[in-house]
């Protein structure tokens, strides 16, 4: 850089924070249109059944009801986030596959009448045998959740890097352990909703609480048979997603269908129970890991096997089991890896993308096992992680290109932060420290939508207008993009207005998933800003008789490097441009995708799979009460290499949020399902961390400047979620000497284990 950064790197409030603080920010449930109707969904009470007949006549006659629809009303077109894995109808056609599966929808003048109408719909079912465990579901003769999917395995992967068998043969030590990672609900505070409006010219507009406006548009188009050109998806403020809104739901399709067929706007808002049972959850996964090492503790080979309980539908199935395997190749050097993953249907709530997307489950197993291996080989857990770290610039076994890697530093700094040297193995019984590492791609670059676009326009008095398709769901994407543009154009953040995520206005963007937004959409916005800057520099260089290369844009001025007095304001430059020989508006465009010399899905050949990779280590200190079995997380030291932090205030927010999320997964949260019925579908029964459980969190930055990220940035959203849970479970081992192989580690499990240990 030629000059100091003035906007990027600063702690800045989100652009929309004041509106949110005032209560004026508009979420989906805050949108009201004239004549708007309210929709509700009838869900299956049975885990697996044939639909014999649906009688909607009574519901239709209820005063205030304006429409009733069932699966027979909609085209025979399935939807799904992954094109080759589409397996879901907006409303069930002939069969329901889990308790909560959508059967019919009603719209009425108010939500209470719609609710009442649901009770008047009579559905005749023929109950079918159901299956609730993936290990049962893969057995010969198990009930088939989808008749055409043998053994209920709807997606699988077997991928080998190197030669695992040979490497095991050369290993001095081989360890094999099995683990289980439970179902967790994302539970964003804002329940899911959709509002659709149809205009007589045939344009369908839908506002949806979505992380993926463009995917939603495509799926609405293919299922409702409306051309994409006639469909507009608008994302209002979204009250959290964590991946649960990386999908589409009955509410989206039914709102659109009703709007088209009744001619009035229709809104659906799910209640909290529906969010728990009828949306998505983190896949429960049975995992086994076999690791071969030499005497020095270097990993020579790893064999990984995972059975994911997918529930009744695919959602992201093939992607999830693939990511889970590929990203075992970071942050440790695994020269030989065999990954087998299976996505198995059961008659249960549906798994989907959740912050980390398959990787946290894998990391739980690997990070737990690394600690167990360290114990067996008498190595320090920190040392075994450092010894096996990948490094920037080194050849990678899968040919990932690692330009920057702060992993070793994160291990050291997290250890320092938690007081590792003084505490590990040295605290009294009941107290302990543990750590876990992690790494995450800043968006995968070769699997689906992989590019983002942006438009930057310069307006009167130097106002900057940015159009981006990036979907801000509360993480601050719009702010980060605004900062990047402001930095590039040399204006203040307050000069920038970001208009985002409206498929009718903003450029194509994949959406918020895979932690790719800052790098991908941020780079696109930066390119658009550079193109605006270049136009301005042309005119300014003429006026100032200076070379373009000598100009700098900073603090709303463009001037000759080294002489801030010799310059003109951005606003004057704009005037000069528009009233001079170039009477044109100034519009910059940018598009960006990760450079890939050899595009690969990694399935057949090795290659790079993400623009860059973040690295992190989290170290936990816990206190276990042997009387009650209760675990208190005292402190988490979280060291994180996310490249250049565009906005440290937001990075810390991501980090702290993920620590508490990881604590929930490690200690409390569990979607309990009995015979297909979710037993705890409420905040109270489900029980996640409140302010009372919050530990002390020390956020430690390990900054690297990545050559591909905008201003050197890497992801900071999902990676932070992969290591807190195993760090906590590892600390529990240090505290009481018990290896827990499954989560959550509840007081009951601790008391039981302590009891058994005594014997």
């Amino acid at each position, binding site marked *: 850089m030629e000059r100091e950064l003035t906007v990027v790197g600063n702690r800045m409030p989100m652009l929309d*924070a*004041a509106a949110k603080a*005032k209560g004026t920010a508009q*979420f989906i449930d805050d949108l009201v249109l004239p004549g708007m109707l309210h929709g509700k969904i009838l869900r299956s009470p049975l885990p697996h059944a044939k639909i014999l007949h649906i009688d909607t006549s009574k519901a239709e006659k209820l005063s205030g009801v304006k429409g009733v629809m069932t699966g027979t009303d909609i085209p025979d077109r399935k939807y799904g986030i992954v094109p080759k894995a589409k397996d879901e109808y907006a409303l069930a056609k002939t069969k329901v596959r889990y308790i909560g599966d959508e059967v019919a929808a009603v719209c009425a003048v108010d939500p209470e009448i719609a609710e009442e109408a649901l009770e008047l719909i009579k559905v005749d079912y023929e109950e079918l045998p159901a299956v609730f465990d993936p290990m049962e579901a893969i057995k010969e003769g198990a009930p088939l959740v989808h008749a055409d999917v043998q053994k209920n395995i709807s997606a699988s992967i077997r991928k080998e890097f190197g030669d695992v068998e040979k490497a095991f043969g050369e290993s001095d030590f081989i360890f094999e352990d099995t683990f289980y990672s439970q179902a967790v609900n994302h539970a964003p*505070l*804002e329940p899911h909703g959709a509002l659709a409006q149809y205009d007589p010219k045939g344009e369908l507009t839908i506002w949806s609480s979505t992380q993926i406006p463009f995917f939603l548009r495509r799926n609405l188009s293919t299922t409702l048979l409306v051309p994409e050109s006639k469909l507009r998806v608008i994302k209002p403020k979204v009250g*959290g997603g964590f991946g649960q809104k990386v999908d589409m739901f009955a509410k989206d399709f039914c709102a659109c269908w009703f709007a088209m067929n009744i001619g009035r706007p229709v809104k659906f808002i799910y209640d909290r129970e529906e969010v728990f049972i009828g949306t998505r959850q983190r896949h429960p996964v049975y995992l086994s890991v076999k690791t071969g090492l030499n005497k020095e503790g270097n990993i020579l080979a790893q064999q990984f096997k995972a059975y994911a309980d997918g529930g009744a539908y695919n959602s992201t199935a093939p992607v999830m089991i693939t990511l889970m395997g590929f990203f075992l190749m970071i942050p440790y050097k695994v020269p030989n890896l065999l990954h087998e993953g299976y996505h198995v249907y059961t008659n249960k709530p549906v798994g989907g993308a959740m912050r980390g997307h398959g990787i946290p489950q894998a990391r739980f197993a690997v990070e737990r096992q690394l600690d167990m291996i360290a114990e067996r080989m008498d190595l320090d857990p920190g040392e075994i992680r450092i010894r096996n770290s990948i490094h920037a610039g080194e050849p990678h076994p899968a040919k990932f290109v690692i330009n920057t890697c702060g992993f070793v530093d994160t291990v050291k700094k997290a250890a320092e932060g938690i007081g590792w040297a003084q505490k590990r193995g040295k605290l009294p019984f009941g107290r302990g420290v543990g750590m876990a590492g992690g790494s995450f791609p800043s968006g995968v670059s070769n699997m689906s939508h992989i590019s983002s676009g942006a438009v930057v326009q310069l307006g009167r008095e130097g106002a900057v207008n940015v159009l981006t398709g990036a979907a801000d769901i*509360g993480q601050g994407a719009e702010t980060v993009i605004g900062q990047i543009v402001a930095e590039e154009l040399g204006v203040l953040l307050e000069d920038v207005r970001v208009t985002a995520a409206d498929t009718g206005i903003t450029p194509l963007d994949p959406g918020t998933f895979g932690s790719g937004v800052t790098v991908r959409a941020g780079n696109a916005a930066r390119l658009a800003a550079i193109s605006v800057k270049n136009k301005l520099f042309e005119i300014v260089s003429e006026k100032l008789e200076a070379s373009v290369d000598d100009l700098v844009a900073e603090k709303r001025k463009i001037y000759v490097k080294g002489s801030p007095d010799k310059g003109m304001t951005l606003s004057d430059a704009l005037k000069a441009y528009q009233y001079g020989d170039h009477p044109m508006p100034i519009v910059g465009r940018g598009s960006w995708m990760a450079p890939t010399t050899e595009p690969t899905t990694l399935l057949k050949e090795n290659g790079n799979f993400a623009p860059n990779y973040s690295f992190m280590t989290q170290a936990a200190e816990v206190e276990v009460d042997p009387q009650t079995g209760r675990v208190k997380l005292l402190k988490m030291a979280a060291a994180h290499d996310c490249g250049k932090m565009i906005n440290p205030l937001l990075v810390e927010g991501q980090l702290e949020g993920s620590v508490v999320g990881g604590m929930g997964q490690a200690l409390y949260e569990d979607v309990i399902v009995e015979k297909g019925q979710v037993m705890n579908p409420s*905040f109270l029964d489900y029980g996640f961390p*409140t302010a009372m459980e919050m530990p002390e969190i020390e956020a430690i930055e390990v900054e690297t400047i990545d050559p591909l990220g905008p201003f050197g940035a890497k992801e900071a959203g999902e990676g932070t979620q992969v290591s807190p849970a195993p760090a906590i479970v590892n600390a529990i081992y240090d505290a009481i000497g018990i290896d827990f192989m499954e989560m959550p580690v509840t007081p009951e499990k601790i008391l039981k284990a302590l009891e058994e240990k005594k014997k």
Partner: protein
Amino acid sequence: MGKMISFALNGNKMAVEVKDHWTLLHLLREELGLLGTKEGCGSGECGACTVIVDGMAVNSCLFPGLEIAEKDVVTIEGLTSPDGTLHPLQKSFVENGGIQCGYCTPGMIMSAKALLDESPNATEEEIKHSLAGNICRCTGYVQIIDSIKSISEGGVEEVHVVAWKNKEKDE
């Protein structure tokens, strides 16, 4: 069945016909169009709908609408001055990163206000206790607590700056 009741909403006296089964949340959002208060669960478990009734933070999704008769109700809309100036708590949430997705924010701020009105120099423990009924899934609570602490630790002297003050109690 409905009943005409009078109450003060954000400092303004008003009389409204309230039906028996309406919750305060329904009254605020659906009947009076005050959309700042959010519904996260509808069963008093998440605190997103928190408002202040006679100085007490309550879950408006459970609170019967009729119960506000002759009482003072303050919602998030009552915190910002008419000229748009944010209440110190709102400003502090904005500046300290206490807001991510923003859905729990109005409820968080109202819980915090009820606490600080009662106990302007609340300690961290007291703050955590007062937020125990407000769930946030984004922030991990750290920056929320920082936001409140920066006020309670004396960053701002006068917390009651706008719209409504704790009314003098007769007793």
